[in-house]
């Protein structure tokens, strides 16, 4: 039976490696889950004279979507966001990250604007406050302005239907 020992070790190693293969190294858990949206005060992309802060999130469940016109994966999820906005299930707010205003305006004009509004974070300071490291990222914010979930990378049909929408419905059912 002694020969079973290395065989056993081998299978345990295989198990660990198999689990390791399934893990996505880009999915770093955010320490901001359960914390309020960090304070910011930023102008809107389309009306620069209007400033918006994190206080604006209060009262409504919000999808806070970090996007940029130079971001290829953002284009991938954009149609889905436009469709979601059409269903009027949740308020979608954009954070336009390290972009140029003209390019951002052009993007919204061409591909459709799913956002209630987008705030303009040219230097990426608010991005750092939010722990953004790979656009697109999407935060689900509850009515109290607390971050409840973070999606890293583009929203796909299965992420939207399987994770985001059930969570949004649950948060909308919570007392304000």
């Amino acid at each position, binding site marked *: 039976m002694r020969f079973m020992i290395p065989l056993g070790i081998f299978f345990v190693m295989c198990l660990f490696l198999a689990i390791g293969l399934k893990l996505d190294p*880009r999915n*770093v858990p955010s*320490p*901001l889950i359960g914390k309020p949206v960090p304070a910011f005060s930023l102008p809107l992309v389309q009306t620069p004279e209007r400033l918006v802060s994190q206080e604006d999130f209060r009262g409504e469940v919000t999808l806070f979507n970090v996007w940029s016109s130079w971001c290829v994966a953002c284009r991938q999820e954009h149609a889905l966001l436009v469709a979601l906005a059409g269903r009027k299930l949740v308020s979608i707010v954009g954070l336009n990250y390290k972009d140029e205003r003209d390019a951002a305006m052009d993007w919204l004009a061409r591909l459709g604007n799913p956002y209630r509004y987008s705030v303009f974070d040219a230097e*990426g300071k608010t991005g*750092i406050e939010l722990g953004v490291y790979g656009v697109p990222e999407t935060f689900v914010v509850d009515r109290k302005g607390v971050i409840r979930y973070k999606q890293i990378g583009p929203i796909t049909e299965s992420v939207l239907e399987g994770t985001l929408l059930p969570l949004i419905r649950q948060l909308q059912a919570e007392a304000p």
Partner: protein
Amino acid sequence: MRPWFWMMPLWLAVTQFAAAVEVRSFDDPAKAQAYEELVRDLRCLVCQNQSLADSDADLARDLRDEVYRIIESGQTREQASQFLVERYGDFVLYRPPVRGMTLLLWFGPLVMVVLALYVLYRIGRSRRARNGQRLMNEEETARLRRLREQYKDQ
């Protein structure tokens, strides 16, 4: 070999360090040292196997700026790394803190060494036990002695 050949590793070393370094000025050399050590000990989240110092990613540059701002404003190294941990999590630290989740990471290798030593000890002991077994019984030993006596002169 030609002299230039011996210079090649030196050249490699120089380009390595020239990868992504902005010119920073500090009012205190201790701050400069704290900054240099910090950016080497913090992980870039875009290219995850590079430190902030090595990475040329846009975000890495922004985060180096933040670390510089914090250190230059007179805050400690701990406050600077705390700033990043609060936003990006323990993942930014190349030396993660010891806690439940990271116990295996910190003490796993030690456990493996202890285990290996134990296995070595077991193997050694069984080998010694086998060597200790007498090859001949007393009768055979006596016979061998007699034979040696008999053929001693040849």
